[in-house]
């Protein structure tokens, strides 16, 4: 690595003076304009440190004369996005939810927006796939305690169920027949056996025959003589295959003994009306939604472009 600078005859350029196993490096000078671009970057850098946050100080960096910050940029972007969505949100706030299906474009926007709002507000109980869990309704299926058309779903989301603090919330109560000593344990066992026959999962037995007597006396007011429930009271249909808390005998006895009364918050007090409508539309679109509002003529649903 001796310093052996020499002029390379082929190029006329000086070498850097180092040599590795016979390989030398040319010290080709830069073009002068390249140097100018270097000076230009220096000037740019100085300008940048003046305009933008740059120099570290004791507590924080210099703010720069343009007062730029990533936070204010995010604020501006969020504001711009809200402005972009404003026409849709305004239209949603004004249209009655049951008339949404008249405007496929708006409906599509509502479903998309509802999917996003669902992920923020609803998946904690209903799950990310809206499949629910024990005590939390599966929103994909066709079984609706309080009604499954768009208007009914909107009402449920807006005012909640058994939610203290919302006057329009819907309330009902499954009594604690055992705990409150309304029925004796044997009677509860009989009724459970009878309920199991309603959905055809067990054959009538003497016990279920006795249970029928109790059912007629205690249960038909809400669940109906045929056990098909009543949406006025949010009373579940006992003849179908869907059980919010479980349809095995043990769970049914538990339900009869301690009663049930799940709570759904009233989202109208936390979210804006447009978002509540979007959520209702999204839940309705999950495949279990029923006809679009009770007073509507049947609608022919036009197709939406996805774009």
């Amino acid at each position, binding site marked *: 690595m001796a310093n052996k600078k020499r002029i390379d005859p082929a190029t006329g350029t*000086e070498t850097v003076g180092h040599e590795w196993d016979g390989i030398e490096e040319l010290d080709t000078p830069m*073009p002068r304009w*390249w140097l100018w671009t270097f000076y230009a970057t220096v000037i740019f850098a100085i300008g940048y440190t003046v305009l933008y946050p740059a120099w570290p100080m004791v507590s924080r960096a210099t703010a720069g004369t343009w007062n730029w910050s990533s936070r204010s940029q995010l604020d501006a972007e969020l504001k711009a996005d809200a402005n972009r969505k404003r026409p849709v949100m305004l239209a949603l706030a004004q249209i009655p939810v049951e008339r949404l299906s008249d405007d496929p474009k708006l409906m599509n926007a509502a479903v998309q927006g509802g999917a996003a709002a669902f992920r923020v507000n609803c998946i904690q109980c209903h799950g990310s796939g809206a499949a629910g869990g024990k005590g939390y309704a599966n929103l994909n*299926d066709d*079984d609706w305690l309080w009604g499954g058309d768009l208007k009914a779903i909107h009402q449920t989301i807006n005012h909640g169920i058994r939610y203290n603090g919302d006057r329009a919330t819907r309330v009902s109560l499954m009594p604690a027949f055992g705990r409150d000593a309304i029925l004796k344990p044997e009677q509860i066992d009989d009724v459970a056996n009878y309920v199991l026959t309603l959905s055809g999962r067990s054959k009538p037995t003497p016990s279920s025959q006795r249970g029928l007597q109790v059912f007629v006396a205690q249960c038909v007011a809400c669940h109906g003589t045929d056990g098909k429930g009543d949406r006025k009271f949010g009373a579940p249909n006992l003849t179908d295959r869907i059980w919010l808390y479980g349809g095995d005998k043990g769970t049914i006895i538990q339900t009869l003994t301690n009663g049930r009364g799940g709570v759904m918050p009233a989202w109208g007090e936390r979210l804006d009306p447009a978002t509540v409508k979007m959520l209702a539309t999204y839940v309705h679109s999950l495949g279990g939604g029923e006809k679009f509002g009770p007073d509507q003529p049947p609608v022919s649903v036009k*197709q939406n472009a996805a774009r």
Partner: protein
Amino acid sequence: MRHADDLANRARNRYFEKRRKVFPRQIDGSFRRFKWLAMIVTLAIYYVTPWIRWDRGPYAPNQAVLVDLAHRRFYMFSIEIWPQEFYYVTGLLLMAALGLFLVTSAVGRAWCGYACPQTVWTDLFLHVERLIDGDRNSQRKLDEASWGAPKLAKRLTKWSIWLIIGALSGGAWIFYFADAPTLFQQLIGGTAPRVAYATVFVLTITTFIFGGFMREQVCIYMCPWPRIQGAMLDEQSLVVTYKAWRGEPRSHGIKRSKDVSDLLPVGDCIDCVACVAVCPTGIDIREGPQIGCITCALCIDACDEVMKRVGRPSKLIGYTTQADEELARAGVPAKTPLQRLLRLRTILYFAVWAAIGIFMLFALGNRSRMTLDLAQSRNPVWIQLSDGQVRNSFTFKLGNMEERPRRFLVKVDGIDGKIWDETRAIEQAGTSLTYEVPADQVAKHSLYLAASEDGPKSTPILIVVSALDKEGGQAVGRAHFERPEQEEEE
């Protein structure tokens, strides 16, 4: 001579090198005329293409070549490319690369010499310069003259014309990205998008600087192509060569007569440096192949003119190969250019290039203009319905890539069930769904399928989409209908 200059230059400051000013002399000849032709053709393609109209019906733009970034579509005459079909563009790029390999291995840096935008615009700017300042010698004189009114006037005139050319070049570029007539009106009226003005501004400035001032500096210092192309040359490649075996020793200042040439061994080169004077990059071709040579062949024209005047055979500088040089030195006649062009390497390059082209044409001719993307929902996999049936759900995208709205019928094959989608209530479930997908768009929907819970855990099914017009067409998606594990009978 050049080396002495350079060394003096570097001795003063070895950290940077001043640009050596180049004042190429005007020359006429066969290669110059070919360069004119190449300039006219390439500039015409560049300026005219966005203005060609192409009728695609009411649902698509009628511009023949359009890169529609906003809607993510690329139109080229009868071909329309969606973003997911970008591999066609990749194929085109591959063909461009292979084409460059082919041309370079056959005739050297022909791209650099004739077709590269840097070369074409520099050439254009050089002609403007000659128009204002005169040829080589007056340019040099003007450059050395002190700044007075005449020089200032000439400089301002020249720069203004350059700026106008630059603005036209930058202006033409943006027409590829929007409807040209509309954008032109907006541009004039001041209502065009800001990005259009910004693009025109940037391209005007870069054209002005690169064509007017940077010129050969771009080729020598900024462009990677010369270095890559150098690696593609071999001893069979035809490149612009000073035939030293014919020219040396040079007879500078020697009165040429039969007697003298008998006494002194002199070559054909009379050291008139006409080849250096016309070179747009300011090199001396007689120093051999070098990075600065863009093979524009203007030195061939210059030398031929001189050789004719002194009565020597032409093509002392000419397109020749290294192999021919060895033959010539051995006194054997050279092979013809055709023999040099047709060899394994060039034939292979051409074969691969053509194979990609044919494959792309075949693929373009056979591509389907209706698409179905199907995804099975896994969250949850199945849903229990109140009547005991089981429901699966899918998400599908129905792509109508044609320039007209089309109606499609969706059916399920392989299972007895009912289907509906997110826009229908569950009571509206049926055996088929119809969709009208707007021209050139994708419709995304959820598909719900309900069937009996009795059956295998997983049943293979087909989602069949048929076009409901006379052209027809079908797209099929494979999926499975999943059921819960059958419970044991109690």
